[in-house]
């Protein structure tokens, strides 16, 4: 009841703030495109577009469920190991003679199960998701190592590898980009136009208040981990297709980039705030930045530094903005009493 009475005012506040962050990202995007076009004559070309998008699609796909998880004030660090485990399971099944169209759903189920393990440990055992998924980060990678050992499975059907690497005939649009865009529409709709999305935001803002308002908080968190695990295994399948090789170290280091993209997309690391469009914009900012650095011949260590700086930047700027706003609010509150729905602090008090 309380939730519904707050909702008319709250989305207005939220959307306004997001629009500003997204504007910044759009400006960044335009700036990057202009810089890229000036710097290299090869920047504006279909081939380059295909390269720069396909190189971040696994990260982009995983950033979507990660957005919802972080909005709920949880985190899932195990996604990169699930990418590795998915590849290992897929490779093992295919080597054992299971046809690929049958193996793929099995791998997605493994991903969902891995996510369920995360979810149950978080919700039933009441452990912080940071710790649980740090554990499963090691666990899933360990399982991948056990399944594959040092062997690399590199015999895949042509249709599978051309799905991972190819573009739609006669266009520079990678098949994997289509998968991403379909998922964007689904996640966008769910996050911003359904009761599921409203509950996700509510849990992130104040889990206790949501529980008293009748939201099944733990069930929702559990489901989000299941979905994240499943999407991570999908990313694992795509990675295998793109590189036509399943190795035990597939996906290593991806979690950092996924979280970077989500935070750069304007999602609050403390939960409760964020949007799918912002994260989609951030995906392209990252893709463009990496592409431009590579075209400029910047060495790969410095590219790593760039990703790190982006992460710091995307955490610090909103934090500074929040502090500034908080100071302004406090100053105003001392002048006149608060009227109507203002800060979440009021709800908890």
């Amino acid at each position: 009841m309380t939730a519904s009475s707050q909702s008319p005012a709250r989305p207005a506040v939220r959307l306004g703030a997001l629009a500003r962050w997204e504007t910044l990202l759009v400006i960044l995007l335009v700036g990057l495109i202009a810089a890229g076009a000036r710097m290299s004559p090869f920047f504006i070309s279909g081939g380059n577009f295909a390269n720069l998008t396909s190189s971040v699609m696994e990260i982009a796909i995983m950033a979507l469920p990660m957005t919802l998880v972080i909005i709920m004030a949880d985190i899932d660090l195990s996604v990169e190991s699930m990418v590795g485990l998915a590849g290992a399971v897929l490779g093992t099944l295919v080597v054992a003679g299971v046809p690929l169209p049958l193996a793929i759903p099995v791998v997605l189920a493994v991903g969902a199960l891995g996510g369920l393990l995360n979810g149950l440990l978080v919700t039933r055992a009441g452990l912080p998701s940071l710790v649980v998924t740090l554990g499963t980060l090691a666990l899933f990678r360990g399982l991948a190592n056990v399944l594959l050992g040092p062997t690399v499975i590199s015999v895949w059907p042509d249709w599978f590898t051309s799905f991972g690497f190819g573009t739609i005939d006669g266009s520079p649009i990678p098949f994997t980009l289509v998968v991403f865009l379909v998922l964007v529409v689904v996640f966008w709709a769910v996050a911003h136009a359904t009761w599921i999305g409203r509950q996700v935001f509510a849990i992130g803002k104040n889990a206790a208040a949501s529980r008293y308002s009748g939201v099944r908080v733990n069930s929702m968190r559990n489901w989000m981990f299941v979905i994240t695990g499943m999407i991570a295994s999908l990313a694992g399948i795509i990675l295998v297709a793109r590189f036509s090789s399943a190795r035990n170290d597939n996906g290593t280091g991806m979690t950092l980039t996924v979280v970077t993209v989500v935070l750069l997309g304007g999602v609050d690391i403390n939960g409760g705030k964020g949007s799918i469009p912002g994260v989609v914009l951030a995906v392209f900012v990252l893709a463009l930045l990496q592409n431009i650095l590579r075209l400029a011949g910047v060495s790969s260590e410095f590219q790593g530094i760039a990703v790190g700086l982006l992460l710091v930047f995307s955490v610090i700027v909103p934090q500074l903005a929040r502090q500034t706003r908080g100071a302004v609010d406090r100053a105003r509150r001392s002048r006149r009493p608060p009227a109507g729905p203002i800060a979440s602090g009021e709800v908890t008090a």
Partner: protein
Amino acid sequence: MNGSTRRFVVGLAAVALVVAACGSSTATTAPTAAATAAPTAAPASSAPAASQAASAAATQAASQAASGGVTAVMIPKQINNPYFDVAFKGAQKAATDLGGSVTQVGPSAADATQQVPFIQTATTQKAGAIIISADDATAVAPALKAAMAAGIPVVGYDSSPAVGAYNVFVNQADTNGIGAGLAQMACDLAPNCTGEIAVLSAAQSATNQNAWIAAMQTTLKDPKYSKLVWDGVVYGNDDPQVSTQQAQALLQAHPNLKVIVAPTTVGIVAAAQVVRAAKKTGQVFVTGLGTPKGMVDYVKGGESPEFALWNVTDLGYLAYAVANDLANKTITGAPGETFTVPSLNNGQPYTIGADSVVVLGPPFVFNKGNIDQYVASFGF
């Protein structure tokens, strides 16, 4: 509410302006940025000024000057790795000799998923040629095939991409060459090419080592080596401690042992240490495959008067020379074709073999006379 909103907008707008300003300033100074970026991408560069030209201009020049040296991009498994830096120096020397240029770019960790974007970028930039040591033979194949489809010659070196994803692979040494080299060094070191020899290998399942040892045994059937007695193979797993134990066991089990052959960089050092510690210098000799830096002490100390490795500088040199020939269309990479590189192989022609593989030559032997020079130039 309104006031704070406005201030927040103003703040963000300020940030946005700063960011936008940074963006546009990098854009306008693009030529200088590219010029400084080139040497950063090529850390080992004693690079000629020509290679510092903006990459775009350089690649255009290369595609125009079809008969001059090609502008090649060298993509090692990993950058800032001494081994690949030495190969890059060789490629740079070849580029200077042939009037072209080469830049080295690549992943900071030996990881195929990080290597592929560099291939794609080189393709986008229409590089004159790609010279690559594959992190994963199949993972890089689709990207390399796309480069070849775009008309860019692809030369593999050190670690081969999948067959069909390169025009020519420059192999540092073939199995038979290494096997023969190991047998010959054992013969050199055993007094009068007579006495017991044993092998200290890496893991029992190590593919390369097993192939080399088998080739060595084949060579030993030659009557020339009939007085060498085979004491068998032990496995040190490329672990210093296990290798040391195995070498000690060899000395105890075979009191008349003359030569330990260790075709692994870990094993050869461990064996030389054991010989020195056991005060058997001059009685038992150690040889095999090692690095100049790891072995210099034992070469001078007499435990290992000679050992072998391929010449990494020459490997880079040959890879560039082949890329250049492919770009100039003097070769296509088809098996059976021959070509000559004046400063390599004593000026004798190279022949492209099955699967479009060219072998650099017999392993390069290091001894007291040349080791200092290679410790300095290889740095590993």
